[in-house]
């Protein structure tokens, strides 16, 4: 009888998916090939503006393979549903944007639909880019059209069933996506509005800095409250600077410093955010960085966590943690956890240490690494990896200790957590 039930459930799922596809699936036509590049697109000022906007959007991060030609695509974005390779954005006729008209580009950015009329997978963050205005889209398009064409066909997405079905994508779009536009708030300053536009649109910050649900959707009303990045296993912190926010107490200067130099008096960028700083934010104009800071500082306070502090008696682990910290960590981060300004980040009060999961601290202890290489810090200091020196219990002990010391008040981490993240592939 069990098999009968299974078949019934499978048929039910298909019927619901088919209905959703019929209900929500926006059906789009293929757009004709662009016959020639309009003269308007060749204006140097427009191209230069587009180059800056492409940097703001960090398009190259996904649309460049490791060691590959810039913007020529090929990097596969890992998701819990399978890998989605980023396509070629250079104006190659056969494999890139060569035959794309601006209308097609605008529809992709604004509505998440490819030139052939098929919906795009939201690994391409059109959920954010839908807020980009048409003028900026035109500049971006002009810039991409100005790149040297590179022939590089991108692979097809390798999504698992049932995520590879068109109906699944249509359902997803019905649930989580509406084409939108950035609407300025006249009650707020110009800087706030500029910051909001950059953060919500091209910056696509919320693609990482929110906890996605089981279907990979971004829950409404929880923007920028932080979350674990699926498949990559780093924790992108909450970005509120007010009570219980992930950046509680951060000044506008702290935010600007982190985005511009990779470091602030509160902490340093690492993991995926280090790449963002190196490739994107360090190149942003000061006024734009300041605008981003103004907007982030307006994010509201967050509710107090339900179960603050340690969840079990960690006394034994803490004693081991103190010993390890003083032996391995204090020579750089200081006995008081304050670090050394501009050299070694503090551990006390550092949101990367106290984020809810402990993943970031665990992985940094295991991996070590350099602070981001930026114009401000061209020769950054680095942290040794401890993966070879410390076993899982040791890492758990020292991370639990630093999440508890100097007024930090975050949960203990378990040996089994370390075992998991020790083997997370580093992309």
């Amino acid at each position, binding site marked *: 009888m069990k098999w009968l039930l299974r078949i019934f459930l499978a048929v039910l799922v298909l019927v619901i998916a088919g209905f959703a596809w019929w209900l929500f699936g926006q059906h789009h036509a293929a757009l004709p090939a662009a016959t020639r590049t309009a003269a308007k697109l060749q204006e140097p000022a427009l191209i230069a503006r587009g180059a800056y906007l492409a940097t703001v959007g960090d398009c190259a991060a996904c649309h460049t393979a490791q060691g590959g030609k810039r913007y020529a695509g090929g990097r596969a974005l890992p998701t819990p549903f399978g890998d989605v390779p980023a396509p070629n954005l250079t104006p190659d006729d056969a494999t890139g944007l060569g035959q794309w008209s601006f209308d097609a580009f605008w529809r992709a950015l604004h509505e998440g639909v490819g030139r052939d009329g098929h919906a795009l997978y939201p690994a391409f963050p059109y959920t954010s880019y839908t807020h980009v205005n048409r003028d900026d889209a035109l500049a971006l398009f002009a810039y991409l059209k100005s790149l040297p064409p590179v022939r590089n066909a991108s692979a097809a997405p390798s999504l698992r069933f049932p995520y590879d079905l068109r109906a699944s994508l249509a359902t997803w779009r019905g649930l989580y996506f509406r084409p939108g536009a950035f609407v300025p708030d006249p009650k707020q300053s110009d800087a706030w509005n500029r910051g909001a536009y950059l953060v919500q649109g091209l910056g696509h910050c919320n693609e990482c800095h929110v906890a996605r649900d089981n279907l990979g959707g971004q829950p409404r009303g929880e923007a920028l409250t932080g979350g674990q990045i699926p498949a990559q296993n780093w924790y992108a912190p909450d970005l509120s600077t007010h009570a219980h926010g992930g950046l509680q107490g951060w000044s506008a200067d702290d935010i600007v410093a982190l985005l511009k130099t990779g470091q602030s008096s509160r902490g340093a960028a690492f993991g995926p955010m280090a790449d963002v700083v190196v490739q994107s934010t360090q190149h942003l104009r000061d006024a734009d960085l300041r605008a981003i800071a103004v907007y982030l500082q307006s994010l509201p306070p967050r509710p107090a966590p339900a179960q603050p502090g340690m969840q079990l008696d960690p006394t034994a682990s803490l004693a081991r943690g103190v010993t390890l910290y003083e032996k391995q960590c204090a*020579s*750089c981060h200081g006995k*008081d956890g304050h670090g050394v300004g501009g050299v070694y980040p503090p551990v006390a009060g550092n949101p990367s240490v106290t984020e809810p999961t402990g993943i970031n601290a665990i992985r940094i202890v295991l991996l*070590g690494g350099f602070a981001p*290489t930026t114009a401000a810090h061209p020769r*950054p200091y*680095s942290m*040794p*990896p401890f993966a070879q020196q410390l076993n899982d219990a040791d890492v758990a002990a020292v991370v639990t200790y630093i999440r508890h010391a100097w007024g930090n008040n975050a949960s203990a981490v378990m040996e089994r957590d370390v075992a998991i993240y020790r083997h997370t592939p580093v992309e």
Partner: protein
Amino acid sequence: MNVRTPLLLAAASFALSLALRAHAADAPSVPDTLKQRIAACTACHGEHGQGTPESGFFPRLAGKPAGYLARQIKNFQDGLRKYAPMEYTVRGLSSNYMHEIAGYFAAQQVPYERSPVPAVSAEALHRGEVLATHGDPARKLPACAACHGSTLTGVEPDIPGLVGLPYDYISAQLGSWRTHTRAMVAPDCMATIANRLGEADITAVSAWLATREVPADAHAQPPGSVTPPLACGVLGAKETTR
């Protein structure tokens, strides 16, 4: 009152300076040196880039040509060489910083240590010697010495030495060229060679190299002292086919 105010101010500033100094004493003093900056490298490769000759797991960097070392960092960044912890560590480094770090390790002078060599037959060692010094023209295999220098200590600035390296390291590198976890910019001459070698050849040549005495002068030979028999992208040859 007027006399006292400056005194009070002086006392207050003295107290403040004491407090500041006490705080500064808590903060570690950090040497402004490259060695201090590259703790992420030296944690595994050793303070002087000596590596772990007993296991061969963390390769020696000391004294290898700077151009070669910088290229390896770049190759890890570009995914031509695959080893996740290395790829992660070097991913954000600028070209300038890579070259500076490479220069640091190239300048280190560390004596070579003997590493364990598996028991191989006299014939195998002889086979290894022939391959290293004469190659095998019938299979279009050039001698190691044709590129790595007559004393096998490498050639500035791009070709590493082969003597003084552990057996496990050499055989693992030749293997990784065959399994595509180590590559160079095309045309990849070492990939061509590694794929022409059989497994027994790799054992033989690695064993013979690992048993060689390191010459008193282990420095790489001067630039231009070899004429490479194969087209190598790392030596400036252009890719001919795609």
